[in-house]
């Protein structure tokens, strides 16, 4: 991205604005009109919502969570929820970082009406009644009143209002991008850019992520001369070189949300006018990561440090330099580092009257050049001083400065109070990357004590301040990352970079100020802005035993709000160490948790693909009015009419002929010398009894004897078998075979043909008639009996594997053809059966038809409490075979004769009652003894049948079962039924064999 040209300064700037300088990002020639609380406001292209509002004179942006205190612009980087606003109906949008667009509608949050005159502001003085954790000790006596208090608390809590009636205009395309890089770089400042350039020299793929719209970090708005050119020009030169490097991809507007396991860097890109998307979620799998995330102001804790007008140095400076907004007319600084002194000088040059600068560091530690510059401008510098109090009720009108070692105070009138305790590194990225951070007593910041493999830190976050050092550290990190990523030993280039970096000035001493003097005396000094956590609350938490940061965080609510650890983390740890009387280096920060920048759910969710599989016959079934439902990964036809009892579909199968798309059925070929051994291991029956041309029905169990799968196996040749599994098990079958034969060294091949082959069932008394019309092969009962399986030729020579089965209890053929022929076969059969009245049937009809026949479906009539034998399928189990080590056989043996197990029974609901539904309980008095798996009223039978799992004492044939359901409290229905064997329809199977 090119640096934006400085707009012409011929005209005088608009009201509230400064003359645009060389680092200004706002284009006064492109006004953007929007509304704030319904009033029209004008901003300009390049503004954020907050900078435009500030220029328009808005100082109170919202009200705080607990005390409803007025809150103003504080950081320009979204480090607290101070400027969270409702924008175009979307709550909790950060005005500091949201780019202004024309026509936006902006509202304040957590207020009634105008944030300047909020009714609940009257809560503020009552903080004495609300010490840390007060809600744990209040409101519960008497308990009956708690719900009232609870609802009151709920109403007071929260900030933004979510409109549940609308979709919030979060429209616009969401994109996703998945990248690979040898070197990922977090931060596009001087260090990050230098690292990228160094890594790119090795020819590696480099991705650089910068959350601001431009590159350059803090150099981008600094005009101070360094080595003969302004600092921003230095950054621009680096950016130009970076843009020219071919193997570097630069992502601006792209905050990083975290570095996860194996150096997965994630984040999102906020689209500009030039991007085809509104926001794009991305993930970058990187071999190495260079973290050059820079610094932020460490908030200074002092009385009323949350008043509108109190600002971080970076915020005031950026307002003036990048947005050409006057941050104030009269400013006082209370800072603790040279960069902030530079800001004071610079703001003074821009026409802000700087009335005094307190520097928490003692005299002599300041940059002499800056001291001279302050003196030249007549700005008094007070070393060893800090602000002790901000004054003014709704915004800063004055402040009080005091020496840190005690002594008299000085008052200054001001409308801008720039305050910090020096700079703190943005440790989030390193922390999520699992770097071990330790307190450094030189820089007085958290520094990486141990970096995980492939992660490097560089730039100002390591305490460097000299631009050459920052670039040098970046270059070194880039070289080292490239060496590691390319597997090269440390080369000469890296050695040179290391020598260069070592020769440059090292980390600069920091300041360990905890807070201003006179803290907490009748005033609030905030450690956490989001949830109104004060210094006093920290003390109160400690007094109640929560005296380590991790516990105080949870008890008092520090760093749990939208700003997370950023505003609170280091201050809380330092203050707590003080309160405990521990040395400062023992201060441990609280855990940093991703996402480091908050992505919207829409952006994370992306375009929202509904991922599912369709059978080859999806369109054909849809044309017949199919209602599709998800079944595992598939969309399958459940009904073919509005009638969910599927009476017509069922009747047509029982009396005529129906067609079912059974393509998701698992289909496999296993072959090789040990194929039979493998089948013997996983199937519960004696698989030596398979015969060519015959289907053998069998089942698989797990180690606990639970039924996992059933299907048919056909021997197709020597050591060559074809078998089917239930649709739900198709995906797991290969792994299941391999797992259970992993120690045997057996030689077999197992191929999953599920998606390769389509499957169609035709079922009903007229099924043969239809089939015979499409094939010249003999499919008469004599030539093609029940359970036969052989290839036949259909239509114009399509070879189909034909299996004569009877899941639905009628004469039925299952035809497996290559998926690409499925539609041809469907059309062929539909045409051949048209005069007979062939019609498709869906899963629900199949479900009922097979239940009438007493054929079970795994999961419907089986569960975790029952084994194969419990559901009456023990006949399949080859008990004598112990040599094959059949999976599940030992458990079946152990459970077989156990009393008190649940058993599957069939039942007939006694006449003259209503119809119970699936899930009805089987009860014995007040005791639950089982439940109904499936029950339906059968037209073919003329009565209501069902299957239930019941305790064995109730499973005897002819036993009376009491069924009971109560889907709503008090609405109880009872039924009586008689236990019968679960073969209701055609128990002798004559129709199957017809």
């Amino acid at each position, binding site marked *: 991205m090119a640096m934006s040209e400085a707009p012409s300064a011929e005209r005088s700037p608009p009201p509230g604005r400064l003359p645009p300088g060389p680092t200004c990002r706002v284009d006064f020639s492109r006004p953007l009109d929007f509304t704030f609380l319904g009033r029209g406001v004008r901003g300009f292209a390049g503004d954020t919502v907050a900078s435009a509002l500030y220029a328009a004179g808005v100082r109170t942006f919202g009200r705080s969570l607990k005390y409803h205190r007025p809150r103003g612009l504080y950081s320009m980087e979204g480090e607290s929820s101070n400027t969270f606003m409702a924008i175009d109906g979307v709550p909790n949008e950060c005005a500091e970082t949201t780019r202004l667009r024309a026509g936006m509608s902006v509202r304040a949050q957590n207020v009634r009406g105008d944030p300047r005159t909020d009714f609940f502001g009257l809560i503020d003085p009552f903080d004495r009644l609300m010490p840390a954790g007060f809600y744990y*000790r209040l409101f519960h006596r008497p308990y009956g009143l708690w719900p009232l208090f609870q609802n009151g608390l709920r109403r007071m809590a929260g900030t933004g209002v979510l409109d549940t009636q609308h979709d919030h205009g979060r429209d616009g395309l969401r994109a996703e991008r998945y990248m690979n890089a040898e070197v990922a770089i977090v931060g596009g400042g001087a260090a990050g850019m230098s690292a990228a350039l160094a890594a790119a020299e090795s020819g590696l793929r480099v991705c650089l992520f910068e959350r601001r719209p431009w590159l350059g970090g803090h150099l981008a708005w600094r005009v101070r001369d360094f080595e003969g050119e302004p600092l921003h020009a230095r950054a621009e030169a680096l950016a130009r070189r970076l843009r020219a490097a071919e193997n570097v991809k630069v992502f601006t507007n792209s905050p990083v949300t975290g570095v996860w396991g194996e150096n997965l860097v994630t984040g999102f890109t906020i689209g500009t006018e030039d991007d085809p998307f509104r926001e794009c979620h991305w993930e970058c799998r990187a071999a190495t990561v260079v973290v050059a995330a820079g610094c932020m102001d460490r908030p200074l804790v002092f009385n009323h440090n949350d008043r509108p007008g109190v600002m971080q140095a970076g915020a005031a400076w950026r307002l003036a330099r990048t947005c050409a907004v006057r941050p104030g007319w009269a400013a006082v600084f209370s800072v603790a580092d040279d960069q902030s002194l530079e800001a004071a000088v610079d703001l003074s040059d821009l026409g802000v009257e700087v009335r005094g600068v307190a520097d928490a560091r003692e005299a002599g530690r300041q940059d002499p050049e800056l001291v001279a510059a302050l003196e030249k401008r007549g700005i008094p510098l007070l070393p060893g001083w800090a602000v002790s109090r901000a004054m003014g009720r709704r915004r800063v009108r004055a402040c009080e400065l005091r020496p840190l070692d005690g002594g008299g105070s000085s008052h200054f009138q001001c409308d801008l109070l720039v305050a910090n305790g020096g700079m703190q590194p943005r440790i989030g990225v390193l922390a999520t990357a699992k770097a071990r951070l330790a307190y450094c007593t030189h820089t007085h910041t958290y520094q990486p004590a141990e970096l995980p493999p492939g992660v490097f830190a560089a730039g100002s976050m390591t305490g460097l301040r000299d631009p050459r050092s920052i670039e040098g550290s970046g270059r070194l990190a880039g070289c080292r990352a490239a060496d590691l990523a390319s597997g090269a030993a440390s080369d000469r280039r890296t050695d040179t970079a290391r020598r260069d970096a070592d020769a440059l000035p090292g980390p600069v001493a920091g300041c360990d100020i905890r807070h201003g003097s006179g803290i907490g005396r009748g005033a609030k000094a905030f450690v956490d802005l989001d949830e109104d956590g004060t210094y006093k609350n920290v003390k109160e938490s400690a007094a109640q035993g929560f005296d380590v940061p991790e516990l105080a965080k949870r008890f008092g609510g520090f760093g749990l709000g939208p700003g997370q650890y950023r505003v609170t983390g280091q201050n809380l740890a330092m203050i707590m160490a003080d309160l405990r009387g521990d040395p400062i280096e023992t201060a441990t920060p609280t855990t940093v948790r991703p996402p480091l920048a908050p992505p919207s759910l829409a952006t994370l969710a992306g375009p929202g693909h509904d991922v599912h599989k369709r059978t080859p016959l999806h369109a054909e079934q849809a044309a017949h009015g199919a209602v599709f439902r998800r079944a595992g990964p598939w969309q399958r036809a459940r009904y073919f009419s509005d009638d969910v009892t599927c009476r017509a579909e069922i009747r047509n199968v029982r009396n005529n002929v129906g067609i079912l798309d059974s393509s998701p059925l698992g289909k496999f070929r296993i072959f090789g010398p040990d194929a039979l051994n493998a089948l013997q291991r996983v199937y519960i029956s004696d698989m030596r009894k398979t015969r060519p041309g015959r289907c053998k029905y069998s089942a698989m169990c797990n180690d606990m004897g639970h039924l996992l799968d059933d299907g048919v196996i056909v021997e197709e040749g020597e050591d060559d078998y074809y078998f089917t599994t239930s649709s739900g098990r198709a995906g797991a079958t290969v792994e299941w075979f391999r797992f259970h034969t992993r120690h045997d060294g057996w030689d077999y091949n197992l191929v999953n043909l599920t998606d390769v082959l389509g499957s169609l069932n035709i079922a009903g008394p007229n099924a043969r008639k239809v089939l015979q019309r499409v094939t010249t092969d003999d499919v008469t009962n004599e030539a093609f009996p029940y359970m036969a399986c052989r290839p036949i030729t259909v239509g114009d020579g399509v070879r189909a594997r034909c299996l004569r089965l009877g899941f639905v209890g009628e004469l039925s053929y299952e035809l497996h053809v290559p998926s690409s022929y499925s539609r041809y076969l469907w059309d062929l059969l539909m045409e051949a059966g048209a005069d007979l009245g062939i019609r498709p049937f869906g899963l629900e009809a199949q479900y009922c038809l097979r239940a009438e026949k007493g054929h079970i479906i795994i*999961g419907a009539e089986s569960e975790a409490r029952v084994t194969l034998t419990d559901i009456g399928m023990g006949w399949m189990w080859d008990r004598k075979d112990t040599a094959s080590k059949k999976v599940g056989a030992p458990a079946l043996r152990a459970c077989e004769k156990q009393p008190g197990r649940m058993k599957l029974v069939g039942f007939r609901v006694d006449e003259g009652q209503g119809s119970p539904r699936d899930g009805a309980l089987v*009860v014995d008095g007040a005791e639950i003894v089982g439940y109904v798996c499936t029950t339906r009223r059968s037209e073919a039978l003329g009565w209501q049948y069902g299957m239930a799992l019941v305790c064995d004492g109730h499973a005897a044939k002819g036993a009376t079962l009491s069924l009971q359901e109560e889907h709503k409290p008090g609405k109880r229905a009872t039924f009586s039924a008689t236990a019968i064997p679960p073969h209701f329809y055609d128990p002798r199977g004559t129709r199957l064999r017809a």
Partner: protein
Amino acid sequence: MTVKPSFNWLRLRRLWRPAPVRRHYDVVIIGGGIHGLATAYYLARAHGIRDVAVLESHYIGFGGSGRNTAIVRANQRTPENVRLYDEGLKLWRTLTDELDFNLMFFNCGTLMLGHSEAAVDGYRMLASTHNLLGVKSEVLDPLQCAELIPGLDISDRPAFPIQAGLYHPPGGVVRHDAVVWGLAKGAAAHGVHIHQGCEVQGIDTDGSRVTGVRTSLGTIRCNRLGIMAGGYSTAVAAMVGIELPIHPLTIQAMVTHPLKPFLHHVFSSGAYHVYANQTLKGEIATGAHMDPQVNYTNDATAYYLKHQAEALVDLMPVLRGVRFMRIWAGLADMTPDMAPIMEGHLRYDDLYLDAGWGYFGFKSGPVAGKYMADYMATGERPEILEAFQLKRFLEGRYSGETAAVMKYGHWD
């Protein structure tokens, strides 16, 4: 109850005092989470056994107790479980009074959403079971679900359209940290010692007896030992060579930026692997399914952050503009039948175990502690714990808490 005006909440006292480590305790409990603290509390309060130490390797509530989404309910599948959790639900109020600590039970009801015919059948069975046992539960149609949860998409558009709901009014949300602290306060007030930063490194045995534990704070001898270490119970039990049928799996949760209250009930969806509620502070707290592979880490993953967003906006498109603020992870100690193991005299006469709660460890904490205290005090298994013995896995008698045959990690 009489209303006593008091300004107790203004008096700031330590909830519990650090105590010196004694070399011997009557009872040692490993694990300073809800289960361990509740057991200690009831041992001291109900049985007068005050010579008790709770050993916690980090800080109390570091594990699952402080990482769950704080949902409580009693709409389980089997009568044994429903009875236990129902008693647990009633304890929140009792404990709030006993501990004089507001556990902030928000009795908002829970709504489980069903997205298939099979799920609806399952809900009918659940509702019938609960109502028969006197626990309120009701099957709702999609329109009734939308009335409870505004913004829920009940059309056919979502990948898994909503077919029905199971509403359970007695359920709700409890402030999980408060339970940990309240129990610690109550236990300490009865003389229980809570040792934080005390890592158990080994367990000493002598014949059929457990004699003590070796810890980072030295050896502590004891007469009775309880293992209640949540996700780490398998590792602790392994110290005495006991192998448990438990798979520890990472489970993740996250919160959004705070919003004014609009979600007045807990809702969950099995098909989407989502459960969500709005905290007192206004955040939407939501949890996901477990990571597929067995592991002991508390690492959150980028995958789940995205997965959760996909699922939530498909169910509730009005959440599209809301932002995730924080994600974290904890351990779920899963048994094959999703029911816990509460066992006494486990290989050693004086060894007790309370583990395998999976993702139900929070809702069950106090009631499990109550009965484990009974068990440890008397040596006799309380009747209500009959269903939760370890031997059921050897006998192939799963509890039926989950209908599905579960698989964690491997195929075994």
